[in-house]
């Protein structure tokens, strides 16, 4: 797949924006302005942005929980301020301050999210079936991590998705650690993409730190799904340089993480790698970079202001209203 100069700059811009929001979210959690969790995603954010940036607006996307799906949603075109306000328990949030870490942007194909890992494998069967019934070429993209792929729901969902030739793309962001447990303790083989072969599902493994490689691989898989050829599995090898969630122990397999190894991982920081590449190819200039960074900072500041100035959701009358549809 060939990307235009405009496409490549769009990927870069979205990655800068996602990174800026990750830093904002981490700070707001530290300042006590988030009401529940934040699971940082910096350095592992290229996969989400690369996956989502070139999807159709009506394609359905299940965002990964890492970085709370900001990279995915920004890629999809969602204005992140409503999701930020949601994290702050505000009435203007995308779930009116009831969901906090849940996202809903129906017009952008983000039809809801569960905080229980593995839900994407079963719920996306329904999205895929509905998309197929609609017959308008919609594709479902389900993002998840290596930890999630250990759930049994994967088998039930993937099996049916292949059987029914559903238009689903499974995007694994494999950062090698499931919360506090290393991949070595969770899966016997190196590539989890090998799981797809059992269903006769095509799979591809890409460098998740290479945003263009991710966008290309997902793009091919999406094309295949749109043509009615069924699901594809894309494994993006990525990294985690932070703890599981902000404030949680930076440990794995019962031990402190080896910080020398973490420093080594940091050399694969995707934003600066991509930036260097774009500069070398003459696609962007230093001035462009400054401008994109400035715009991202302004966007984040405006989103923070919007969230903090929005009313806190404390209207108990909505409890009845939201429980049942009339």
């Amino acid at each position: 797949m060939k990307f235009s100069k405009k496409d490549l700059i769009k990927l870069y811009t979205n990655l800068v924006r996602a990174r800026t929001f990750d830093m904002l979210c981490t700070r707001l959690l530290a300042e006590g302005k988030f009401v529940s969790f934040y699971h940082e995603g910096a350095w592992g954010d290229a996969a989400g942005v690369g996956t989502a940036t070139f999807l159709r607006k009506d394609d359905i996307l299940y965002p990964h929980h890492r970085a709370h799906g900001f990279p995915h949603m920004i890629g999809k075109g969602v204005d992140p301020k409503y999701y930020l306000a949601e994290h702050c328990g505000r009435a203007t949030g995308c779930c009116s301050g009831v969901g906090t870490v849940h996202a809903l942007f129906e017009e952008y194909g983000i039809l809801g999210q569960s905080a229980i890992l593995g839900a994407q494998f079963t719920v996306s069967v329904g999205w895929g079936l509905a998309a197929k019934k609609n017959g308008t070429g919609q594709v479902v993209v389900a993002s998840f991590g290596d930890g999630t792929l250990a759930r049994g729901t994967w088998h039930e969902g993937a099996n049916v998705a292949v059987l029914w030739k559903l238009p689903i793309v499974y995007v694994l962001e494999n950062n090698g650690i499931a919360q506090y447990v290393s991949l070595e303790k969770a899966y016997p083989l190196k590539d989890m993409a090998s799981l797809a072969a059992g269903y006769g599902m095509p799979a591809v493994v890409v460098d998740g730190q290479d945003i263009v490689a991710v966008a290309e691989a997902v793009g091919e898989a999406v094309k295949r799904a749109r043509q009615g050829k069924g699901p594809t599995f894309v494994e993006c090898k990525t990294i985690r340089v932070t703890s599981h969630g902000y404030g949680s122990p930076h440990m794995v397999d019962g031990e402190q993480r080896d910080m020398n190894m973490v420093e080594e991982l940091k050399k694969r920081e995707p934003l600066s790698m991509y930036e260097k590449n774009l500069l070398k190819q003459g696609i962007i200039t230093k001035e462009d970079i400054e401008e994109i960074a400035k715009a991202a900072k302004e966007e984040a500041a405006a989103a923070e202001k919007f969230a903090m100035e929005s009313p806190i959701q404390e209207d108990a009358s909505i409890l009845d209203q939201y429980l049942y549809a009339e």
Partner: protein
Amino acid sequence: MRLLQYNEAINEALSEELARDEKVFLLGEGVGVSSLATTRGLVQKFGPDRVIDTPIAEAAITGCAIGAATMGYRPIADLMYSDFLYTAADDVLIRAPQWRFLHGGRQSLPIVFIAGSGGYRKVGPEHSHSPHSIMLHHPGLKVVVPSTPYDAKGLLKASIRDDNPVFYMFHKALIGMKEDIPEEEYIIPLGQAKVRREGTDVTVVAASYMNYLAIQAADKLKGEISVEVIDPRTLEPLDLDTILKSVIKTGRVVIVDEDTERCGFAGELMAQIMEHAFDELDAPIKRVCAANYPIPSGFLEKFVLPQPAQILAAIREVVK
């Protein structure tokens, strides 16, 4: 009017709703054959895209229902036995009931989970559950428990047209019950209890197969005790008003519930009656429930599940 069996009435409701609304579809393991014949013949009528046979994959079946519902479809997810809901509890009890709520009330999830429940068929502890109390513990899920063919049809049609997740639990021991069913369409709204027998001495509240047993008890006691039998028909929403009206009239209550006594619906209903009508009671409320054991297979079943003699004894005791 035609005489229809309980499972035929269910089948007819499904058939009518599949024909009426093309957004309705049915999926589940073996729905093309259907072990209790509730869905038999539908795949021939509506085709394999509307009546979908699945692998044994309850999580995929129920998760599929959630996904499709958020895209404007009205799925009916057949779980065969209500005991199997536990294999899909994440979707049935957590995701479906809470989805609309936690996403700020912006969506509706018109889903029917349908399964056969209950014991009295000696099929053992993993195929005899009546798990309605578990469902009621999860706000956002409606619970429908029909006790007659007429109700089975009318309540299922209402469940399919409801914009919320509904667990429709028919009772396996009622499958052979026959009743006159009108030719013309009818719907029974959720949340309306039915007074099955009018009486003045004691109120018996019982749903599903327990209602059948309660009516038999009431008829047996005719001339001795005047028993009013109330069938809640749906446990969520619960028509507490009809129950309380009866309690005010009789002052005495027996609750019959097939679920395990401990933490069951009977205990919950006792509490609600006491909260709202304590001063109307002339005697402590009695309950007849499954004893606090797993339901044994075979001939031991009768020592755990509520028996007609226990219902008679409870009624006699409460009117003493």
